């Protein structure tokens, strides 16, 4: 199995005036290709902080982080951007679709920044929306879609660049149970096709649907395999 993510003794500290608050306290984590991991922990335990570091939106205060064998440190924002484009597909709790763009335009967005030409972009985005079961909704605006449909658009958008890791922070947090489990089914399907998924949640039941659960408690990892 290929190792795609390796964290060694990761610390994240925030300076708050005179006080330093240590949010991540020596995280060690290895993720291999094709895994479906749930990061489970109570509110304030540092899940989102960890996700930001995995997603290269932020860098650790100390420790070593390797993503696809490449060391992520205090690089220039531009370089981090290029890494994100290639490696990470983000899915957020509150979808973050651009409200004035149609579903297909939203899915195209990462391709615009990757420099894909217009026609191909549209084709790929439409195809991806079909994959998440929204082929009849490609020209709908976000407000014309249900919450579950919006999150599926967001998943299609996260998948469009064929990322190494699909990174989801509370992907069903804003959804009811039924649509939530539809989203989970989609994750299962994507994982079966070989996609590596890291999902953050504080819901034990959701976490159980993953292949592996990583407990995070007060900035430390307690691993538990299923």
């Amino acid at each position, binding site marked *: 199995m290929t190792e795609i993510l390796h964290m060694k003794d990761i610390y994240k500290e925030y300076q708050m005036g005179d006080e330093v608050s240590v949010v991540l306290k020596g995280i060690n984590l290895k993720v291999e290709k094709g895994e479906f991991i749930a990061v489970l922990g109570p509110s304030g335990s540092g899940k989102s902080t960890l996700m*930001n570091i995995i*997603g290269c939106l932020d860098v650790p205060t100390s420790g070593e982080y390797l993503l696809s064998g490449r060391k992520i440190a205090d690089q220039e924002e531009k370089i981090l*951007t*290029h890494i*994100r484009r290639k490696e990470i597909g*983000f899915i957020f709790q509150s979808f*973050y679709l651009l409200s*004035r763009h149609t579903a297909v335009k939203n899915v195209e967005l990462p391709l*615009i*920044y990757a420099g894909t030409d217009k026609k191909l972009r549209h084709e790929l985005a439409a195809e991806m929306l079909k994959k998440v079961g929204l082929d009849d909704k490609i020209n709908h605006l976000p407000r014309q879609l249900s919450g579950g449909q919006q999150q599926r658009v967001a998943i299609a958008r996260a998948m469009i660049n064929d990322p190494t890791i699909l990174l989801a922070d509370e992907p069903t947090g804003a959804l009811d149970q039924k649509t939530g489990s539809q989203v989970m089914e989609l994750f299962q399907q994507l994982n079966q096709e070989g996609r590596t998924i890291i999902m953050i949640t504080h819901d034990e039941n959701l976490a159980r649907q993953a292949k592996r659960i990583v407990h995070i408690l007060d900035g430390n990892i307690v691993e538990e395999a299923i």
Partner: protein
Amino acid sequence: MLKENLIMAWDNIKNSKMRSFLTSLGIVIGVSAVIALITIVQSATGEMMSQFESMGTNKISVSASGNVLKSGLTSTDLDNLSKIDNVSGVAPSVSLTGSAGKQGVLLDEVSIMGKNEKYFEVDNTEITQGRKLTAADMDGHTYTCVIDQDIQAGMFPNENPIRQTIKINGQGYEIAGVRDTESSSDVMAGFNASSTADGTVIIPYRNALALSGGSTYSSVDIYIADISLSEQTQANVEAVLDAAFNYKDNSYRIMDMSSIVETMNSMSTMLTALLAGIASIALVVGGIGIMNMMLVSVTERTKEIGLRKALGAEPLQIQALFIIEALTLSLIGGIIGIFLGLGISVITTALIGSTFAISWMAIAIGTGFSVAVGLIFGWTPAKKASNLKPIDALRTD
């Protein structure tokens, strides 16, 4: 990418039409004010200039009042003047009032002007019948004349005046030609003509001098071949005149059109710059409006910026998005302003009775200004947006 940014910018502008309109209004007002002021000033002064220029930038007019020892310029002086380098000709002018008559008709208030062939060469008053006076008429013993249409109407209402003889102050002159009364380009001649009720007759200058009883010329136009050397030529003319009047001060005055035109030119440039400067204050105010709107927009769209960055937008691409939006706003304002400004200019020039001349410089300045305003005032908000950290941007609500 540029096209994408343009489309996105246009989307945003369209989605807040009222706000975009109000923001652009400052630029519209600024640009139209600049365009209108420049165009109006240039149209007005341009017309004045062409009037002055038609009076001749290629000539130096000398008015020699003389002194106690010498009352004016002699024929020898005229010869000396015409021998100066770069002088293409010298045209003395003698004017007096007298009478013109023929059998049964006497006009007793006629303006009599003495001119030479050079005058007719450069003068572009239309000859309606017959011919101009030429060098052959100038020997001092040839009695030919050119009358104007007023005299023709007064003395030959129903017959051809050419080759007829009229008596000017008692001396018989054969009429060689008739010229238009109105279209004289020589303003002075126009004055002279209108000051006498009966019209103007032009006779060879020597004859006129004899008629006036004088022996010297007090008014001479000196024509310059190459205008670019006019300063040097004028200095030479002054040297000859100084010598002619034995270096006595105040014996003559020189009126040089090109220096008047030059002064007027620099005055109009200054006026244009001053007015455009005042008008561009409106542009700065408009620019601040754009900056304000862009800053609000960046704050409102912080989440969007964070998302775009998370999805792979580089800082420069975010900056481009906002700068292009600012540029689009200011350019739209600029284009509307140009048309509005030109419209105002057309109406104003019509009202003040000068001809409208489209000023490409004004349009270039208007466009340039609006682009500059967009860039300068869009820069800070765009930079602010591009510097937002994606995590911070995503966290705000």
